[in-house]
């Protein structure tokens, strides 16, 4: 385990964390403002990945693919908001779980009907196929660098949007105290529809960017949903800043756990035990992190509500 390997893994963790942030940002705002638990958020991520993969394959233009993924997913999300999510605001969390689980089931079948059961192979854009020499003896896949750059850019944009614009102010007001914001004349319903669409676009973007480095398949939404939920709980529900910090934490802990724990355990434990224990500990690392954070700060790192 040398310095280069460590640095490489940290960069991977950063990239994964930023993608998690894109997914968690929409989820945390929807949860924070409307107190709505949307399990179907992962399905929007899946939709983005599928559309991007197919458009990229058909047109050969990666930028077009990403844009198409965002557009299609926002359209789907708008439909979803009007038909279902809007009616769930004032309902119980469990009812929201029931309804959005129903949407997951429908979404998986729709994807299967359109694109088939077999996983899609999404390719990286040809320009970014090769590695970049970051430093002497440190090649790094250029596509993963793009991922990090795009993630940081979007995070910055979101920060400016939420903290420097009027709509951002309304979003923050809704998240910290919805009722008060309503009394002050904020049309929380409209703000929420905007946030839901924005969240869908970010999830689609994450899906489109992740497609070439993960497998595009049915069920990918359910797999990414749980880490995203862990992120918003650690960060504090409703807080963008919390989601950002927590996403980076989870991304790093998860990647570092997978990369460093097994070799570290092999050094101190018998090989058979280490081989069993390593992956297990790596898999549960982020849940341990969440349990630890909740024990110390029950409302997450950056509680949005005073």
């Amino acid at each position, binding site marked *: 385990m040398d310095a280069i390997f460590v640095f490489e893994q940290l960069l991977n963790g950063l990239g994964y964390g930023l993608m998690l942030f894109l997914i968690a940002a929409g989820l945390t705002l929807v*949860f924070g403002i409307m107190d709505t*638990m949307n*399990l179907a958020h992962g399905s929007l991520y899946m939709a983005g990945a599928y559309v991007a993969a197919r458009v990229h394959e058909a047109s050969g233009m990666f930028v077009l693919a990403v844009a198409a993924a965002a557009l299609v997913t926002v359209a789907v999300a708008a439909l979803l908001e009007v038909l*279902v999510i809007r*009616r*769930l605001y004032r*309902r119980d*969390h*469990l*009812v929201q*779980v*029931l*309804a959005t*689980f*129903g*949407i*997951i*089931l*429908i*979404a*998986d*079948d*729709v994807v*299967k*009907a359109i694109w088939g059961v077999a996983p899609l192979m999404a390719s990286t854009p040809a320009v970014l196929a090769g590695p970049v020499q970051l430093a002497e003896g440190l090649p790094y896949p250029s596509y993963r660098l793009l991922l990090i750059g795009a993630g940081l850019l979007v995070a910055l944009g979101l920060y400016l949007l939420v903290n420097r614009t009027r709509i951002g102010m309304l979003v923050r007001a809704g998240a910290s105290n919805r009722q008060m914001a309503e009394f002050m004349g904020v049309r929380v319903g409209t703000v929420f529809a905007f946030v839901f669409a924005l969240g869908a676009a970010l999830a689609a973007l994450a899906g489109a960017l992740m497609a070439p480095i993960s497998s595009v398949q049915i069920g990918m939404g*359910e797999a990414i949903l*749980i880490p995203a*939920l*862990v992120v918003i*709980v650690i960060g504090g*529900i409703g807080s963008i800043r919390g989601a950002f910090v927590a996403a980076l934490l989870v991304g790093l802990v998860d990647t570092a756990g997978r990369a460093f724990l097994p070799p570290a355990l092999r050094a101190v434990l018998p090989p058979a035990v280490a*081989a*069993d*224990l*390593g*992956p*297990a500990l790596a*898999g*549960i690392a982020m*849940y*341990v992190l*969440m*349990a630890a954070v*909740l024990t110390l700060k*029950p409302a997450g790192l950056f509680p949005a509500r005073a």
Partner: protein
Amino acid sequence: MNRPVFAPSRVASAAAEHPRQPFAVRFPGFVRRLPWLVLAILALFPLLAPALGLEYYVGFVRRLLIVAIAASSLNFILGYGGMAALGHAGFIGVGAYTVVALVEAGFSSAWLAWGGALVVAGLSAALIGAVSLRTRGVYFIMITLAFAQMLYYLAVSLRTYGGDDGYGLYTSLEMGAWLDGVHPDVFYWVVLAIAALVFAGFSRVAHSRYGHALRGIRDNETRMVALGYPVYRLKLAGFVAAGAVAGLAGGLLASHNAFVSPAIMHWTQSALLLVMVMLGGLGRRWGAPLGVALWLVLEEALKMHTDYWHWPLGVLLLLAVFHAPQGLAALFERREANR
């Protein structure tokens, strides 16, 4: 939920529904005997099935009964105790892997294996509950989910028990000389007997003093604390009982499938269990078995006709949310009441 409070009288043992229901008032005898009628039909099913050409479905009903055991335990803590656990499949998995561990260690007694599943799952529920029950609301949902995920990854990494690929139980467990080989479907009746006992047990406890205290906590926890109830201990007791029963269901499921893999404790399985209970009717006596029966029968029927069997179930969930939010059991009840 302002339902009248009844003392746990003799009526409870006859499994009568709430007397306030018009249906129950009009046909008290029928309603009181309904559980026994259902039990009799289920008990006779393996004998009648060959004549009706339904042999295949004996195994299906057996699975349905096992899932209903797990769902009843979830209904108990969620419906009566208000504890929205999104990790119940974790306890099913603990039970199933306990059976695997005992078989791998050379034991072959079914009773030992299922008893072990019950005990080990109960112990893990005690540990998990002790931590989780300190949180509320969404955080409780998330922390139970987190613990179930930890168990899932633990199972994936246990290569001794097959890891991701699962573990096949090639020789069936022995239930004792006086049961084995009596009839090919003897395992079905064992499952039915256990399911009936679990169902009767939870129904009875739900109407006991403990059950009323639990419902009090569900409806107003602060008030119950003020009244001097040991709220945390009462909730933990319910959580442990439910976890243990789910573990028992997991042990039975291991025998039923003759195979155990981490997939049985994936988070979607926990969600599915929750969905079935809510579909049937949260906190209602018949909720869990009704929900499980509706879901599994529909799934089976749809699978026979099409590869696209998920979406009709999804549509069903949306319809249930908007048109029958109290669940199937309540729909029946309410329509009668509206007359």
